[in-house]
């Protein structure tokens, strides 16, 4: 019986496969295939995120707190993407999304795809913000966009938006 089920399953796969070959060139099918390129979000609570804020290697870490619903955050994302690209060797950019869980599938993942974001993305879902915000920085009121830049022996927090030159200047300070 098990064998029979297995055969059926294989036949089902073959049938499906045939079907998709037949449909090749059909725009709507191509679209579906595109959307099946899965983006695996890594969703963490603050305990999970904390190690990313305290690495002790020789890199400079740029941790940006953002969300798709935050207009000034979305506006400055290309700046962080460019830093990721231009300083690929020495600087690691991590984009920490504070999107709402119910919008991961409907907003966040489509946004990441559409904008083809290259930096590492972590999704933070931790309700108890009153306890974790000061652990990121005592200076943080909780407004986003906000950015933490750190290296082994230096650490700075910014509750503000960046343009490219401003962020570059700050990152340079950590590289020198």
């Amino acid at each position, binding site marked *: 019986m098990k064998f029979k089920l297995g055969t059926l399953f294989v036949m089902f796969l073959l049938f499906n496969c045939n079907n998709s070959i037949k449909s090749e060139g059909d725009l709507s099918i191509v679209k579906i295939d595109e959307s099946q390129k899965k983006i695996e979000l890594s969703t963490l609570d603050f305990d999970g995120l904390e190690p990313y804020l305290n690495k002790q290697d020789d890199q400079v870490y740029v941790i940006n707190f953002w969300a798709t*619903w935050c207009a000034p955050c979305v506006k400055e994302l290309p700046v962080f993407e460019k830093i990721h690209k231009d300083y690929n060797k020495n600087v690691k950019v991590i984009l920490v999304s504070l999107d709402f869980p119910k919008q991961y599938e409907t907003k966040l993942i489509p946004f990441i795809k559409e904008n083809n974001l290259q930096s590492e993305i972590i999704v933070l879902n931790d*309700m108890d913000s*009153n306890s974790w*915000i000061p652990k990121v920085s005592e200076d943080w009121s*909780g407004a*986003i*966009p906000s950015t933490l830049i750190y290296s082994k022996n230096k650490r700075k927090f910014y*509750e503000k938006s960046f343009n490219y030159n401003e962020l570059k200047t700050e990152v340079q300070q950590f590289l020198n």
Partner: protein
Amino acid sequence: MKLLKIGMVLIAILTFAAFTYSDNSGYKVGDIAADFNLESVDGKMVSLTNYLEAKGFIVVFTCNTCPYAIAYEDRIIALNKKYASQGYPVIAIMPNSTTASPGDNMEAMKARAKAKGFTFPYLMDKGQNVYPEYGASKTPHVYVLQKTKKGNQVKYIGAIDDNYQHPESVNQKYVENAVDALLEGKPIKEEHTRAIGCTIKV
């Protein structure tokens, strides 16, 4: 000529000093909050001094467009319902620049207040002078004030509660705890809390 130079240096120093000073402003718990005179969605001007009977205020910096502010709308309405009659009315202030955030203009504010049935004034910080004075950085951002002989004293700064996503799963109702403590004449356990919010648009 020399005098002119010295004068210029002095002006530069004073300007610098003024900027550095204002940079670090914003109220701490215990400070006396300044009054304001801002237009509400019904066209009337509102000041704290208008409220002769009030024992204090729940001042909420909020807006139409921030998802966090929207998530808290019903809870802000509930706060006013519960505490206005006990002497602590809600005063909502929209701090964003309407050029930067057109969805927060007066027409949109009126529409939102009407649709949600706001029972409290919803004021526009038109010159954007009030929120920096308070030190608000985001929406929503709450200041609980208590009327004292010296003026309206800041008693609590921060979040409404500890769960923006699920009102039913809230563990700590920070603002309610603060106002309840004031009403009972007890010390406030948590005078300052933090939450994620949308930066105020300038």
